[in-house]
């Protein structure tokens, strides 16, 4: 159980600088996520309202999964602010993936502002018996 919990860990400040540096001005928000693990896959759900699929970047390299989504400014032009409870900006969050993820078959879908990412686990390699040759 503990092992499962550590399969997806947030990267805490160890990522290279070019990944951390934002490419857009404005605040960056961590999207709320659900991560659960079934028999053969880990599923990640992330709330990213206002992000279109073409503005979403999912990057996986060296075991680090990066989610970055640009929120479109939907405010009509020339309008005056009355109430503001959320700010436009960029969603950004990183996770460390265990090596048991089949990185070639990750499935991503963005529907109604919710990203669904299915991360299939690789099949454990069958144990191989090493024959010791005698001279």
């Amino acid at each position, binding site marked *: 159980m503990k092992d499962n919990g550590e399969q997806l860990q947030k990267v805490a400040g160890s990522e290279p600088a070019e990944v951390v540096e934002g490419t857009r001005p404005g605040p960056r928000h961590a999207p709320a996520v*659900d991560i659960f693990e079934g028999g053969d896959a880990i599923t990640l759900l992330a709330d990213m309202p206002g992000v279109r699929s073409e503005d979403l970047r999912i990057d996986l390299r060296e075991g680090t999964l990066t989610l970055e989504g640009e929120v479109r400014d939907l405010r009509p032009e020339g309008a005056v602010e009355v109430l*503001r*409870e959320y700010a436009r900006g960029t969603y950004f969050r990183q996770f460390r993936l265990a090596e048991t993820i089949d990185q070639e078959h990750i499935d991503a879908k963005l529907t109604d*502002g919710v990203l669904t990412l299915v991360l299939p686990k690789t099949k454990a390699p069958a144990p191989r018996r090493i024959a010791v040759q005698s001279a």
Partner: protein
Amino acid sequence: MYVRTFRSPQNPWLPEPSRLLQDMERLFGAVWGPPGEVEPAGVFPPLDVTRDAGHFYVRAELPGVSADELRISVDKNKLSLAGSRSAPQAEGVSYHRRERAAGEFDRTIALPAEVDVEAVQAHYEDGVLAITLPLSDSAKGRRIQVQTT
């Protein structure tokens, strides 16, 4: 009734700036002390309201709420948003993180002026509900011509 509302991601080692927390800090930081100690008492959905000469524009972040689960009602200057968001139903899984809000929500705001109830339009796209509310004729006001003799 909120079953769960927007919460900051819980991480015992690294306080992660959530949007709500940032907003709370901006508003109350000096009063409530250092960031990270505040458990945000969030509202759902978060709104963004603007206006021009003839309209109010309300946007609500409602990711994963299907349009037929949304109930929008307008009365004079009161706008109500209600609905529910269901948590993913998955059997036999173990959760690593569970931060997304789920449950019922019901929120009413009072706009600064009355709106034309019949002409309100709503549009849902990419998890954001956008409502356009034209001002009522009485709220638009009427310019009074001063007569001179």
